[in-house]
């Protein structure tokens, strides 16, 4: 049963996010634009470096000369930019927006939030220079040297405080799933990022305990934090964009507790050089988290049942839909990887890289693209600079994801199979994956192009409103001076 109103709505095209009250919009505008615009810039830089690294892996002589362009540095820099340059600021920005809009209250401390965003981006800039100079830490997903990590953390602290205060001041007493997800995400990031940096860089623990902390941080960052921030966003936006009232949220609560209780154990592969209970517990945690992934699929199905077509018609929903699909696929891949264990060492191959692409880019980045596309027009009061870029971005992102993740996953399976053959040397096995890596380079190229369109579109939109504001100000100033002249 489609109501006449809904029918009219569908006929008139996709619904836009409502502008909210003036004070909500105004308070969110600049802090969010600072976060999003900087993030889009880092994203382009990160995918460019990633493309370089991908090419170098099969053509090592490519740009081999300057030290700062060597594989180890550009690879680490691109990983750090994707996570700390793009995912963290965008997800925090979207989180703040949800806190304000769902609580029907202006952002608490927009200036502080804007400053926090600036600090975060400054930290990323310092970190990028550090990694390229060779001061990277060597820890995956914690690449930035301590000083840069400190700046990032300070920026996060300001933004997180604003988020929590905004929630505290909300005028809508009842909280919905998105709010508890984001709230938990705000605390979670502070906990894991500070603990990992303190224990690895500031007061380094000894020996293999470092590996344990690094695994723990990665598992929590990718599994729990990204899960919380992205799913919260999806749960808030998916029903609304699909034209449905948000329903009851028991499954969301199920997913929430599964993530917090079991997701936090994940991340330690079966061959880690750690006491056996750690990988064993991590494997159990991964399988149990798989139930949260199923729960997400249930929620999406409950929300969209009978309306899958609407996902297709609305570009923003396409991003969200593909993002959630990638979440489910990534979750299943993680379970397979954990269960393959020591007998079939998938996590020791490119399969892990494919899974991380699914989780970081396929899931979180795509969800964030869709959300930014949905909320920026309401924030700035004008539509996107280019609708065509927006549509094209989706195709580039989707095709890029396919071309990166599918070959890497297939290459990983082949690699794992050949690793079991004692007659084959390690170098030989690695060489056998080159074909897959070349294919994934094509995927990275497509992704870079899509990210470029995203940046240009966002920058163009912001430049448009800046120009308009400037013109307004000039006109007003002109009117004032001529008025004054007349008075004199």
């Amino acid at each position, binding site marked *: 049963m489609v109501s006449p109103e809904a029918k009219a709505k569908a006929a008139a095209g996709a619904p836009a996010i409502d502008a909210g009250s003036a004070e909500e919009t105004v308070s969110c505008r600049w802090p969010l634009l600072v976060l999003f615009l900087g993030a889009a810039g880092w994203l382009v830089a990160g995918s460019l470096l990633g493309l370089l690294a991908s090419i170098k892996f099969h053509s090592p002589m490519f740009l081999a000369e300057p030290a700062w362009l060597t594989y180890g540095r550009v690879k680490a820099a691109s990983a750090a930019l994707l996570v700390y340059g793009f995912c963290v600021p965008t997800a925090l920005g979207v989180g703040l927006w949800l806190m304000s809009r*769902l609580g029907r209250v202006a952002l608490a401390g927009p200036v502080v939030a804007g400053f926090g965003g600036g600090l975060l981006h400054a930290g990323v800039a310092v970190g990028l220079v550090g990694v390229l100079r060779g001061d990277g830490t060597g820890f995956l997903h914690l690449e930035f040297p301590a000083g840069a990590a400190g700046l990032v953390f300070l920026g996060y602290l300001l933004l997180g405080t604003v988020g929590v205060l905004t929630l505290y001041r909300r005028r809508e007493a009842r909280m919905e799933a998105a709010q508890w997800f984001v709230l938990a995400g705000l605390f979670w990031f502070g906990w894991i990022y500070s603990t990992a940096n303190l224990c690895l860089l500031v007061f380094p623990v000894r020996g293999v305990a470092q590996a344990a902390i690094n695994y723990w941080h990665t598992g929590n960052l990718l599994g729990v934090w990204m899960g919380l921030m992205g799913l919260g966003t999806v749960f808030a936006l998916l029903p609304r964009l699909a034209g449905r009232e948000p*329903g009851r949220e028991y499954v969301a609560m199920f997913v929430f507790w599964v993530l917090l209780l079991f997701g936090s154990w994940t991340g330690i592969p079966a061959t880690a050089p750690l006491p056996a209970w750690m990988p064993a517990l991590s494997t159990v945690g991964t399988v149990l988290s798989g139930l949260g992934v199923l729960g997400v699929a249930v929620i999406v199905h409950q929300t969209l049942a009978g309306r899958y077509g609407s996902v297709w018609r609305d570009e923003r929903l396409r991003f969200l839909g593909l993002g959630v699909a990638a979440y489910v696929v990534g979750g299943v891949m993680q379970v397979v990887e954990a269960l393959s264990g020591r007998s079939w060492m998938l996590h020791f191959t490119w399969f892990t890289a494919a899974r991380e692409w699914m989780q970081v880019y396929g899931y979180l980045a795509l969800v964030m693209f869709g959300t930014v596309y949905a909320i920026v027009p309401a924030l700035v009061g004008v539509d996107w600079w280019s609708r065509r870029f927006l549509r094209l971005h989706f195709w580039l992102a989707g095709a890029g994801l396919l071309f990166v993740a599918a070959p890497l996953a297939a290459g990983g399976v082949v690699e794992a199979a050949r690793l079991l053959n004692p007659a084959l040397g390690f170098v030989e096995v690695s060489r056998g994956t080159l074909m897959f890596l070349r294919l994934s380079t094509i995927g990275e190229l497509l992704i870079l192009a899509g990210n470029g369109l995203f940046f240009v579109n966002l920058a163009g939109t912001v430049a448009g409103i800046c120009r308009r504001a400037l013109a307004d100000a000039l006109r007003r100033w002109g009117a004032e001076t001529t008025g004054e002249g007349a008075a004199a």
Partner: protein
Amino acid sequence: MSVEMRRPAQPATEGREEPTPQGAVPMWLFILLFVALFWGMNYFDRHGAWFNGRVYAPYRSLAELQMHQPPTGGINLERGRAVYESVCALCHGVDGKGKPGQAPPLAGAEWVLGPVNRLVRIPLAGLTGPIEVNGQQWNLAMPAMGAALSDEDLAAVLSYMRTSWGNKGTEVTAEQVGAVRKEIGNRTQPFTAAELLTVQ
């Protein structure tokens, strides 16, 4: 023409957008959760060694680990053989028959099978001067080859010597070695055969 981010004060009434079908948790998800929890407990029980920090993969439990790495304490003749072959066999021979001009035999030797207190003193402080072994005269010098070994290792090697190559002696315990070590203190002077014969 816009999506309302706000929740309606009351549940959706007709005319507004369709409500999402009730978001209850499907029963099968709970059943799966319990199945997974049960599996998880079993898996952890089999692979996790119950949080024992000494057990690393591929071992799954302390018991399995101990099968491969015998416990310290208690006499272990396999260990004794390993120590003997790496520390003593160079002079006394793997077969314990000694080597002419280098070291007297241990197989059948009254010094090996005699009083434990006497035997333990030899590797702890060394032996020098004339000595009769199996009716043959020797006059050489042996450094304190066993001084650096732990009580357990020395007891294991002496027990191995007393029960191998046709020797039928009793085993030596780590406590006996410890007691002698205390008795002779930090003596660096090697014993002589005559001096040893006064020890019972």
